[in-house]
């Protein structure tokens, strides 16, 4: 049976890994290469790397990505300002197995269609930055900063289906880096509306969070802070989840 996935989500800035709080206030948590080596040995199911420099400066550091992929013995998803077929080529050529797209999904859907045709749906992950406000879900893009899309959640999901996106990663802006627990109401809503494989991120505080979200049917949980700051181990989390009858991959 298909296993649920536990996915370290790492933010790259230069040669360092950083961690944000509500998408801002980036703090350095370690050297990229050494941290990635550690995760590779700790039985993570996938790794997501979001390159902030690539997003902000528009250039992918392909040499670094090649070095990362050489150390990463699991499927590697890479994101960072990918808004052209050329940049997608660079990412895949440098060792990405999947790419995440964000701004381009809203601004250049025709490019996304081309990338999907070239690499197949299964390689393209939509990274959706969501903020729950009152009882509504606001979708942001461009570093979740100031820009609100004119699409609501359902419209974004519909557009993803139309463009042939293979998987959706939802980042909860309110809880990013807060370690105050996953927003289970948000996750339940997302699961009921998203038919594609769904990965959620934002707020993981403890092992029980993983249990609750997996029980709601998400395919993967991505997290950063819980690994960086609390030092919770992936093996430890998996042992806990197995005990709760969650279908995790164990050694």
């Amino acid at each position: 049976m298909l296993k649920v996935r536990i996915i370290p989500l790492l933010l790259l800035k230069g040669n360092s890994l950083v961690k944000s709080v509500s998408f801002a206030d980036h703090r350095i948590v370690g050297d990229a290469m050494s941290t990635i080596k550690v995760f590779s040995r700790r039985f993570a199911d996938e790794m997501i790397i979001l390159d902030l420099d690539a997003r902000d400066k528009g250039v992918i550091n392909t040499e670094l990505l090649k070095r990362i992929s050489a150390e990463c013995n699991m499927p590697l998803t890479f994101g960072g300002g990918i808004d052209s077929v050329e940049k997608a080529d660079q990412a895949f050529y440098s060792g990405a197995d999947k790419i995440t797209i964000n701004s381009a999904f809203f601004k250049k859907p025709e490019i996304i269609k081309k990338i999907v045709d070239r690499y197949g749906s299964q390689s393209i992950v939509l990274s959706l930055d969501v903020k729950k406000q009152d009882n509504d879900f606001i979708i942001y893009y461009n570093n979740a900063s100031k820009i609100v899309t004119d699409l609501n959640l359902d419209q974004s999901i519909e557009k993803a289906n139309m463009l042939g996106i293979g998987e959706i990663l939802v980042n909860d802006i309110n809880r990013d880096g807060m370690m105050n627990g996953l927003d289970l109401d948000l996750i339940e809503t997302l699961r009921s509306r998203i038919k594609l494989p769904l990965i959620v991120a934002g707020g993981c505080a403890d092992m029980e969070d993983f249990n609750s979200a997996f029980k709601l049917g998400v395919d993967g949980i991505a997290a950063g802070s819980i690994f960086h700051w609390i030092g919770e181990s992936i093996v430890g989390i998996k042992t806990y989840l197995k005990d709760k009858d969650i279908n995790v991959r164990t050694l």
Partner: protein
Amino acid sequence: MLVGILKIGHGNIRSLLNTLEKFGCDVDLVSSKEEIASIDKLILPGVGSFNSAMKELENNELIIPIQEHARKKDILGICLGMQLMMKSGTEGGKSKGLNLINGKVDLLPNNLGRLPHIGWNDISSNDTNDLMINVDSNSNVYFVHSYQCLIKEQISMIHSDFYNQDFIAGFQKENIFGTQFHPEKSQNVGDLIIKNFLEHTNA
């Protein structure tokens, strides 16, 4: 030993290269008839869509060289690479495959669960299969696909399940091997499967 990776389509072959080099192989990216003739083992990697990949092989006149290689030397198709080995496929419009195996490629049932089938899943085999030497039953490997091979001949199969429905995760027909999963992304289990392919000798 010289292992050739067929240069086809677009996509990540870096992890495959890394794995092969770890096992001390000489690896060559091959894209011509002459290059294919010079190698001991051939790997068809798996990215892109069936129809466009076959068109590319046809345009580069590689179909016959690959079929000739497969007549006597070891060949491994990974993911789309395995699917290309079938007689026909439907992704991107119906088209002919390499016809190394009597089978076709079709979409996984979309009423059972979420597509694409992405993630780690168990594999097992009741048949003798050289790829599975020393691989424990129910080992986990990494899948990322929406299409599956439907094979009509009696050959050694590796199985997995898509929301409790059996599908073909791999096969061996003498010197012809396929894996629907990505061994190059499947950590220790994947390494073992690649090693088994590299160590396979034709009796």
